[in-house]
């Protein structure tokens, strides 16, 4: 578990108010009730502030699972 993963898990558990153990890559926005549009926005802005990056509109819309989120983050963080 890297520092990056820990930070991401921390943000996810804080935004959705769940334990870090409950978070899997398959967690879907569509069938997970706490992940509504407002939580999505909070999640995006928390991640932007923490990792000092910026998501384009298209990227925000395309994040549907925690796996998607990790994939996009990896693309953005690798130089």
């Amino acid at each position: 578990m890297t520092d990056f993963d820990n930070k991401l898990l921390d943000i996810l558990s804080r935004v959705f108010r769940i334990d870090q153990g409950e978070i899997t890559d398959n967690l879907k926005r569509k069938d997970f009730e706490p992940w509504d549009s407002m939580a999505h926005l909070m999640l995006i802005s928390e991640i932007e502030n923490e990792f000092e990056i910026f998501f384009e509109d298209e990227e925000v819309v395309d994040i549907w699972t925690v796996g998607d989120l990790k994939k996009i983050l990896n693309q953005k963080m690798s130089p």
Partner: protein
Amino acid sequence: MGKFLGRFLRILAWIAPSYQFRASVYRKCGIKVGKGVYMGFLVMMDGEYPEYIEIHDWASIGPGVKIMAHSGASPYHQRRRIFHEGPKKVVIGKGAWLAAGSTILPGVTIGEGAIIAAGAVVSKDVPPLTLFAGNPARMVQKLEPQKD
């Protein structure tokens, strides 16, 4: 009817019972309001430049929404030329829904069928069939009509 009468009518448009009546009072104030527009309580629209605001058919304006067409700044700023912006056109597209307490800034066009979440502050154009939220408002989701 113009701006002068509009200044008095606007108070009526805030608190009048029934949304059709509030919408038609805003029409009298000089704002272009289409048919079937829902107008909530305490909707605040730019009183100085009503002719710059256009609301298309079947749009839904929630309670406490603010729509501004100009940003005037204080006389201090205007005199010292620190900040002054003239009016810019605001268009609310067909069937768009502005939820309670959202703020629309000058020059913004809301696309057809878009949703603005409660309390959002919209400073840039919103494409059709999208959900915008937050301050400043950002795209959160694309809306897909259900097919039968």
